[in-house]
C-alpha cells in the first residue's frame, strides 16, 4: 500500500511531506511506521533518518499508533483566555487519559496543538478533520458521547 502511495508522486525529495501526509491519512491508526519510513526512504533515495527528522519536526505527524479519533485541542492564547484549560481538564476526565495518550478502546487520542485559525469561536478543538468551536464543558461531553455512540 505504501509503495502505491509513493508511486503517485515523482521520486523527488520535495514530495516527502505530501507523501507522508497521504500515508498517515491512509493508516487506520493515523501514524507512520518504521517500515513506512524505510519504504519511502528507498523510493526517494534519501536516508531514513532524514525522514525521521522531518516526521518528528512537524506536529501533524505521529510515529506512534493513535486512536480512531484524534482530538487536537488548541492551547494558544486566544483559546487559553477563553478557558481551554477547563476544556482540557474535562477531556482528561471524560477520556481517562493524559495528553499524548490513547484510550484503552482505541477510540480517542488526546493532543494539544497551536492556533488552528478558528479563533472567532474559541475555545476550539479538531477531531480528525472536523472543527468544534465555542466549547463548554457540557458541549465537550455531548460531542464525546455522540462519537462513542456512533462506533
Amino acid at each position, binding site marked *: 500500500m505504501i509503495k502505491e502511495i509513493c508511486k503517485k508522486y515523482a521520486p523527488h525529495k520535495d514530495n516527502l*511531506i505530501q507523501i507522508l501526509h497521504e500515508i498517515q491519512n491512509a493508516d487506520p491508526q493515523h501514524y507512520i511506521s518504521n517500515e513506512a519510513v524505510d519504504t519511502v526512504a528507498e523510493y526517494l533515495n534519501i536516508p531514513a533518518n532524514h525522514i525521521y527528522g522531518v516526521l518528528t519536526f512537524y506536529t501533524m505527524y505521529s510515529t506512534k499508533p493513535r486512536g480512531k479519533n484524534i482530538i487536537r485541542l488548541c492551547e*494558544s*492564547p*486566544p483559546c487559553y*483566555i477563553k478557558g481551554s484549560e477547563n476544556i482540557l481538564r474535562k477531556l482528561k476526565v471524560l477520556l481517562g487519559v493524559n495528553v499524548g495518550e490513547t484510550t484503552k478502546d482505541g477510540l480517542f487520542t488526546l493532543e494539544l496543538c*497551536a492556533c488552528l*485559525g478558528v479563533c*472567532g469561536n474559541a475555545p476550539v478543538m479538531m477531531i480528525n478533520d*472536523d472543527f468544534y468551536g465555542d466549547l463548554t464543558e457540557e458541549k465537550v461531553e455531548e460531542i464525546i458521547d455522540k462519537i462513542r455512540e456512533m462506533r
Partner: protein
Amino acid sequence: MKYYRNHILVSINETSLAAGVQEFISSLRNELAKNDLAEEINILETGPLGFFGRGICLTVYPENINYEDVKIEDIPELVQEHFLKGRPLKRLMLGAAEKFSPKFNYENRIVLRNSGIIDPENIDDYIGTGGYEALEKALTQLRPEDVISEVKKSGLKGRGGAAFPVGLKWSFTAALNVPQKYVVVNADEGEPGTFKDRLIMEGDPHQLLEGVMLCAYAVGANKAYIYIRGEYKLCIARLENAIKQAYQYGILGKNIFDSGFDIDIEIKIGAGAYVCGEETALIESLEGNRGNPRWKPPFPGVEGLWKAPTIVNNVETLANVPFIIAKGAEEFVKYGTPECPGTKVYTILGDVAYPGLCEADMGTTLRTIINDYAGGMKKGFRFKAALVGGAAGVILPDRLLDVKMDFSSLNQYAAVLGSGAILVLNEHQSIIDLLWSILRFFRHESCGKCSPCRNGTEQLYKLISKIRKGNGTMQDVDLMLFIAETMQQTSFCALGQSPIMAVRSAIENFPDEFIELTKK
C-alpha cells in the same frame, strides 16, 4: 441571466459546517419551494460574511440584513416573516441581543470586496465582478516592468509582518537573468489569533490566483506554489477547485490570452510548524526538509527554492495586486495614509460585542476598530488590554488605544501589524496568564536550530511560570527582559527575536500585576 427578488447568502465556513449548514440549506430550499418562492429567492453559498455570529449566519440582499445562529427549527418562521410578509425577523438579527448594529458601512474593502458576496466555488462569479481583468490588462497591454512600476507607485507593503515594499522586492528578482524563478505564496498562517488569510482564500480564492499570476508575470516566473497549512481543509478544497476551473478557462497553463506567458500553480500542504511562516523555513519545508530557517543573505529573491530566485509573499499582499493593476495605483493610494496606502484586514477577538473580520484603511486607530467595527466591549465587560499582532505582538493598555494602525506608527511600539490579530481582554483577565500562554507557545514552536531561541524560550517559560505561581521576584522580571533582549539581538530568525515584544510591553504597560505577584 435570471433575476431574483432576494438573495440569501449563506456563509459556508468551518463554524457553519460544524453547525450542519448543508442540512440547513436543503431544509431552507424545501421550505421556499413549499411557499412557491423557489423562483423568487436565490440561495447562494458563499464565504465569510464579515461578521462572526454564532452558528449558521445569513445575509439577505438587497436589504442587507444579517442573521446569526439560525437553526433548522427557525426556517418556517423566517420564511413566513421575511420572505412572505417582508418583515425581517428581529429575534434572529445580528445585534438583536446587544442593541447595536455593527457599522459595516465604515469598511473600505479591497481585499474582501467579493468576500461574502460571490460564490467562491464559481469562477464566473469572480469574472462577473471584474475578476481576471487585471491579468488580461497586464498580459495584453503592459510589460512586466510596467506591472512592477505600478506596484511600486501604489506603495504596497508586504502584509505578512516585515512590511517590505512589494514593488522593490519584485524588482530585485525581475532583474536577474536566469532560466528558472519561482513565486511562493505564504499561506502557512500560524500566528495565534490570526485567520485573515484563511478567510481571504475561503471567500475569494480566484483573487489570490490572479495576484500570483500577476506577480509571476512581473518577475518572470512560470511556476508558483501555494504553501498552505494542513488544517485549512476548506481553503485547500476551494483553491484546488479554483485552480482546476482556471485551467479549464485557459487562464492557467500555457500561452495565456495568446500572450506567450505560461504559468502553473501548485498547492503544497504544510504539516504544522509555526516557524514555517518564516520565508526561508518555508522554502526548506517545500524542499522536503525540517523547517529550519536559512541564513540571510542571500535573500530568497536571489537564492530561494532549489537555489533559484524566489518571491515569497503573503496571501493578503498578493490579493491586493489585482486591484492595483486593474484600477491603477492612483486609485489604491486613495485608501490609507501617504506612507502606508491601502487597507488592512483584521481579525478582532475576545470580549468585544462583535468579534470578527474587518478591513479598515491603514492608519485607522485601534480605538476606532474596537469601538466602531467590533461594536465596543461586550455588555458588562470593561476593556483592559489588547494583544495586537498575535504572540509576536504587543500588549497595549487603554491609554495607547489611539495608536494609528499602520506600519510606520506602530513602529513606535515595535508592534507587528502583519498578522492583523487583535485580541481584547476584559478587566478580569490576567496579563500574567496571557504572557504565560504566549511564552508557552514560543517554547513549543522554537525550531531548535539556534541556542538563543531554543534555550531562551525555555527559560522565559520557566520564569513566567514561577512568577505566575507567586514564587517569583522582581529580579526574575528583570531577568526575563534581559533574556528576551538577548534573544532579540542574537537569534537566527524572527521567531527568537519576537518574544521581547510581548515581554516588554506587558512589563512596561502593566507593571502593577508583576509587582503584586512578586510581593511575597
